[in-house]
């Protein structure tokens, strides 16, 4: 008998909302949160649009550490973790703190610390405080969460680029099944990074106004920021303590294209493998998947190879499956993306509402046709699948079910 793992808490900060309720309301209202970047001067770039978490006050979430000595990625991660753990009611739930672990994905880590140092040197300003500089290390993301929440289980940062959130979710699930922890705090975080912006800018994959996933006229992705954290627990224990259950996490699949450092495999071979592996682990037939949360970055290459992979896996059903890419509203929150998309999936299976893919006007024959365009729809979703792809062809898919 496979142990059942459920999601009992959610925490999110995003360009469309800084808590789960406002995020969800904005998501199903189709609010586009991207716009001109405020965090740094974009005048030397030819693109100026991104997604930012606005009105974020880190001090509201920190009780032990000084947020000024944490990079913004760490700040966002701590805030989302605090929200999720409060939502799940873990404190006071009689769990041994040694059996609560933290597993977080990130793409850029606290790159802002390095970027700030560059700016200071160019402007002949003093360096940053030594503690802040040393907290660049990616492991500080989970360390800060664990210190803030006083938990003492394993703490691992999984920096597998833009698939990192799903990698971390899968690993947290494994840690519960392996018996090392009872509760896994999982997710991903990334602050807006000027270096990351420069990377996508140079690769020519950025949109200049909005992100149009799966649209014939899609022109690229938008770099964004955010954090998403989910609380995973054993189903029986969650029921026993009367926890609110959002969804059941059925399984995950990993794969790697092993093809190119930045481009996806044109046939999406890794994506196919990852989806198939997640289905096998979840013990599901193809026709049981009722919705796909697409990676859907809005670049020509990603959306067509993802579409091809879904068509290869799902055959005739592929173009009838409702899919959406919430990156049309949030932009690409990097290592947080798949974690935030997992939160969206948990809310979708619970509410029977599918959020739209915004900015969609013209179908592309090369892309999936089941895109939910511009307006949320009501639809019972028993099982949802969520894809995430990354540089290096790293791929992770998760599957969750209504409880």
């Amino acid at each position, binding site marked *: 008998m496979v142990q059942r793992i459920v999601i009992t808490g959610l925490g999110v900060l995003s360009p469309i909302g800084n808590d789960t309720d406002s995020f969800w309301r904005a998501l199903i209202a189709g609010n586009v949160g991207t716009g001109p970047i405020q965090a740094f001067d974009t005048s*030397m*770039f*030819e693109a100026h649009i991104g997604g930012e978490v606005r009105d974020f006050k880190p001090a509201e979430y920190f009780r032990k550490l000084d947020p000024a000595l944490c990079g913004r990625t760490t700040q966002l991660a701590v805030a989302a973790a605090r929200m999720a753990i409060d939502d799940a009611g873990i404190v006071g739930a009689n769990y041994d703190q*040694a059996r609560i672990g*933290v597993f977080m994905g*990130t793409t850029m*880590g606290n*790159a802002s610390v*390095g*970027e700030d*140092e*560059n*700016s200071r*040197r160019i402007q002949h300003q003093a360096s940053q405080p*030594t503690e802040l*500089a*040393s907290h660049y*290390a*990616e*492991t500080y993301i*989970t*360390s800060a969460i*664990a*210190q803030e929440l*006083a*938990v*003492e*289980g*394993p*703490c*691992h940062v*999984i*920096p*597998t680029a833009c698939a990192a959130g799903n990698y971390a979710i899968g*690993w947290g699930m494994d840690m519960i099944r*392996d*018996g*090392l922890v009872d509760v896994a705090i999982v997710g991903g975080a990334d602050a807006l990074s*000027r*270096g*990351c912006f*420069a*990377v996508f*800018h*140079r690769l020519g994959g950025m949109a200049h106004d909005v992100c149009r996933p799966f649209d014939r006229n899609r022109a690229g992705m938008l770099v964004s920021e955010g954090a998403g954290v989910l609380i995973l627990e054993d189903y029986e224990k969650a029921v026993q303590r009367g926890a609110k259950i959002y969804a059941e996490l059925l399984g995950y699949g*990993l*794969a*790697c*294209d*092993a*093809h*190119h*450092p930045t481009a996806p495999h044109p046939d999406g*071979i*890794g994506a196919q*493998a990852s989806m198939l592996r997640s289905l096998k682990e979840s013990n599901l037939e193809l026709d049981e998947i009722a919705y796909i949360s697409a990676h859907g970055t809005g670049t020509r290459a990603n959306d067509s190879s993802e579409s091809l992979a879904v068509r290869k896996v799902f055959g005739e059903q592929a173009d009838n499956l409702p899919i959406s890419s919430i990156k049309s509203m949030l932009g690409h929150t990097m290592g947080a993306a798949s974690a935030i998309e997992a939160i969206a999936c948990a809310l979708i299976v619970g509410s029977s509402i599918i959020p739209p893919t915004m900015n969609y006007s013209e179908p592309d024959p090369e892309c999936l046709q089941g895109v939910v365009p511009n307006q949320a729809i009501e639809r019972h979703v028993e099982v949802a699948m969520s894809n995430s792809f990354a*540089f*290096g*062809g*790293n791929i992770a898919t998760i599957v969750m079910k209504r409880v």
Partner: protein
Amino acid sequence: MTKEKEPIVITAMGAISPFGHGIDTLWSALKQGARCGTPMERVWSELQQSECPETPDNPGEPVWGMRVDSSKLVDLLGKRGLQYWRTGTKFLLGASVLAMQEAGLTSENVDPDGLGITIGSNLVGFQSMVDYDYTAITEGPHYTSPMEAPNTLANAPASHLAIRLKARALNTTVASGQCAGLDALGYAAKMVRDGRARQVVAGGVEELSPAALWVYLNARAISGGTLQKAGLPFAETSTGWLPSEGAAVVVLEQAKDALARGARPLAELAGWSSAFASSPSLEKRAAVLQRTARQALEAAGVSADEIDVVVSGANGLKGQDQAEALALRDLLAHNAHVSIAPVKGILGESYGASGLFQTLAAVCMMKHDLIVAAARKNDFLLTSATNETFTKALPWPENTQGTVLLLAQDLFGSASAIVLRRYND
């Protein structure tokens, strides 16, 4: 990790280290107790000549590091693609090519969908990211290189390695500071056990870039002084880490798979565990490290009294070493035969790679029936450590199972442990 019937075994090793290519150079350095080190340049960016901050505690004094000679890597890797790989990627690819050769795994006999990669690493993308950002804002975004773009990420070495080896089962990088190496092994073992991969190339890699050095200096993990006083495990006089770089790799698979393809298991990865100390006090860190060790031993189904060697994570940074000494005092209270081998006294502190270097040292000791860079427990507990404390080569105690405990602690509170033991059919 619960004890299961089917053992997970190490079937090959590879290394690119400051001592050279391969395992033999590493083993001979460990046997001879030969330390090496060079003064490090302290510039923040490879593009910018301004110096990084002075050593907080000893301004003006040189800091020392152990560098890898990269000049011969082309012989191992060939020229194709080399110009697009950063230093850390070259180290990892070099070490992995050597390990795959030793494992007898080639494109002819490996199923790409069964081959996975798991790498412990923390700072390999940082220099590239700093330089990318610096070029973009000073010269202009079009002066950055598209080929350099993926190298800004922490998982760049793992991604390049997957392409090189055609490894499609999974590709994971773990960044848990100094615990990343042991945690990558724990992760990899779980992937093999659950059948997510048939073989996993599990490695660790780190490079001593100016940006990495900047992090170490700001963390006060290293300070200026002489080479003789840098990186002395458990020693009062030590000035902090002797930072090192390189890559260390093992191939993990289920014993039955290894035997079926005619491979010889070098050691069994019998247990792993990991935990976090939520406050930085010495007592808390010692208690959590001890708990981690006990959890790993329990997973391996052995007691603390059965440990023959502790391949310690001590590296000459006082706070970390004192916590480990305290943990070992309790853990080994009733073990009369154990030796302590803090191999970082020779190999240096390679951060995310260090757990894998400890693993290579442990497997070499098993293979040669010789415990090196070590002291008996009582010599370790009763005396204050000096340069000479951990120089002994001791024969492996007789009538034991061949059990080794590897320990790691991170600066920010993580702790990890691995139990290795001799493989017996």
